[in-house]
């Protein structure tokens, strides 16, 4: 296969994976091009993976009324003593006095078995 053909199938597949191209175009790759077994396998595996991902992720549908309960719970928390907000935070986040940029930490919810993501160290 020529470099151009290889480049073309990767671009078409990536376009689908990134949501800027159609799945049908990625499927058509298997019909239109003379692919090496490895290339064909790569395309088939990618399509199968995205199918499984989509089916798995879309299984998670919030229960009826979840949004209302969430908003109510958040409002109750905001009105409680532990939900009191520092005016300095208000001004900084709404653009009155921006803070110098630094890495945004997570509050203390880090699970013991997990390590935090470090930018640039994936």
């Amino acid at each position, binding site marked *: 296969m020529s470099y151009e053909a290889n480049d073309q199938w990767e671009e078409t597949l990536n376009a689908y994976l990134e949501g800027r191209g159609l799945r049908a175009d990625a499927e058509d790759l298997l019909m239109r091009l003379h692919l090496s077994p490895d290339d064909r396998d790569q395309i088939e595996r990618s399509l199968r993976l*995205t199918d499984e991902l989509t089916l798995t*992720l879309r299984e*998670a549908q919030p229960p009826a009324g979840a*949004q209302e309960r969430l*908003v109510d719970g*958040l409002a109750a*928390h905001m009105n409680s003593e532990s*939900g009191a907000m520092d005016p300095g935070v208000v001004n900084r986040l709404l653009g009155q006095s921006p803070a110098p940029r630094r890495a945004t930490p997570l509050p203390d919810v880090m*699970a013991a078995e997990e390590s935090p993501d470090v930018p640039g160290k*994936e």
Partner: protein
Amino acid sequence: MASVVELRQWFERKVVENQRLFYAIAYQILGDAHEAEDAVQASVCKGWSSLGELNDPSAVVGWVARITRHTAIDLRRKRRERATDDEELAALDPGAHDVPLAEQADEREVMRRLIAQLPDNQAIVITLRFYEGLDGPAIARRLGMTDNAVRVRLHRGLERLEQLLRNRVTRKAGT
């Protein structure tokens, strides 16, 4: 002068607009609707109380999503600690590489366990892409990232999932 009311409205709007994402993130880890809902509730409250630690308001969605993921992981760990039955323990442990996944395990549950092994930012980007159906630039806007950062996380996450699936097939073939 900005007011607390404005900040509340801003944060509530972000929560409502992204509650499906937060729920999906929690469900991936917990696999239980009620626990996922509890995790999201706890996470948005933690997010509000910790807003002083957020430096870039445009990153608030990804930040709350990460809080949600870690809250869910903590809940799952506590659930595991409560479990006394060995079989239940094995079934709840997505990271147990030395314990073969039960043959009868549902394929989607297996995929959830694999997603749970991804780094936060890869799992969140993949969820926005394949759960919400967003494209790269839309994900970038949602998370306050560059398009390229989203692209890198998406492809690394997909590559990692493929590798985890291959490892699983190899493990199964070896047993």
